[in-house]
């Protein structure tokens, strides 16, 4: 596959350089919301949507900033726009699905400080993707995030039944699991070569 083809960009963000397991982006929700598969899935959907919106916004802003040679304002603009996009999603979800809103709870506003979203905007700028490539990249990254979150939630649901020593409960165990998942995902490294 061509390295700048849309399929490769999608696959790269989805599996090979998974945002959570290979680039360590968005770890807070990854550890916080991965208790149940259902919640993880909802959170994943919210993140995919926010990623898509903020990727499009970031593309537009970057074009504008480059045109007026204001690149040093990039970070400030990105973070402001992403915060507003999250607000928008929050209002949208609250209106159309109050049940989903309650499930996501505190984590929807927290997407603002989710580095995966900002990371996506920064990476697509650094790699100079064009518009459709940005779309493929954000969809791949969102799908990869959801995949990692759901896999982790599945593991943790099983883990609740396991008999482990006292000191190994909680975050330490989750991180160990994440390490194993990450090790597994390294197997995708040669994919699409």
């Amino acid at each position, binding site marked *: 596959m061509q390295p700048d083809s849309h399929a490769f960009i999608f696959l790269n963000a989805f599996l090979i350089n998974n945002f959570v397991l290979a680039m360590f982006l968005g770890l*807070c929700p990854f550890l916080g919301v991965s208790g149940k598969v259902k919640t993880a899935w909802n959170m994943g959907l919210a993140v995919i949507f926010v990623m898509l919106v903020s990727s499009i916004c970031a593309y537009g802003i970057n074009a504008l900033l480059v045109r007026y040679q204001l690149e040093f304002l990039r970070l400030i603009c990105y973070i402001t726009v992403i915060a507003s996009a999250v607000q928008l999603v929050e209002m949208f979800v609250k209106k159309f699905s109050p049940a989903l809103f309650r499930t996501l709870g505190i984590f929807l506003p927290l997407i603002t400080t989710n580095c995966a979203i900002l990371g996506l905007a920064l990476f697509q700028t650094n790699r100079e993707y064009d518009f459709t490539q940005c779309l493929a990249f954000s969809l791949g990254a969102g799908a990869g995030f959801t995949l990692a979150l759901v896999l982790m939630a599945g593991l943790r649901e099983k883990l609740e039944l396991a008999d482990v020593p006292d000191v190994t409960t909680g975050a330490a165990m989750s991180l*160990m699991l994440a390490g194993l998942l990450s090790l597994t995902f390294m197997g995708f490294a040669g994919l699409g070569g």
Partner: protein
Amino acid sequence: MAEDPRLPAQLSWDTLTQGIWKENPVFVMLLGLCPVLAVTNTATNALAMGLATTFVLLCSGVLVSLLRKIIPKQVRIACFIIIIATFVTIVDYAIQAISLDLYKALGAFIQLIVANCVILGRAEAYASKNKVVNAFVNALGMGIGFTFALLCLGVVREVMGFGTLFGMDLFGPEFQPWAVFALPPGGFFVLSLWLFLFAILRKRGERRKEALHAA
């Protein structure tokens, strides 16, 4: 680091130390994990990241504390984020000017300091409610605690993964590097092991306290 006698009375030693140990942002509160895992494959990167984060923590803490009576309650989060983003931009350009190699090694993670929950958390929970001096000392403690945690990971990962420390060869040419420690999974494993260690230490401390009470 000596205590400054000019500081006001209500500022206790605790203001500084709670960030370093009792409320260590990484090991206790599990905040800001992304840079902790992403840039700690060598001790040098870990130190640079820790210092950059400390700088942003200090500056944003002081500025938020200075402006705490001016910023309206409703838009405070947005204001904090913009203040933080300003200092992160400064750090970003500064590192680029000082060392291009370091800038390339840390990549987008310098700019991602802006999304580090430790900094926003400090601004919201401490700096916006306290005097400038307190905010400064508290941010310094948090920064030291964060840098300490990064170094804990960075040192282990560099020694195991490359057989070096701050770029110096430790074991000689026969050493077989344990590559997984330098790769992404190693970050998860090393942090997890540190957490195990601290959980065991905490358990032991509690047991000792109980034994004292019983006696």
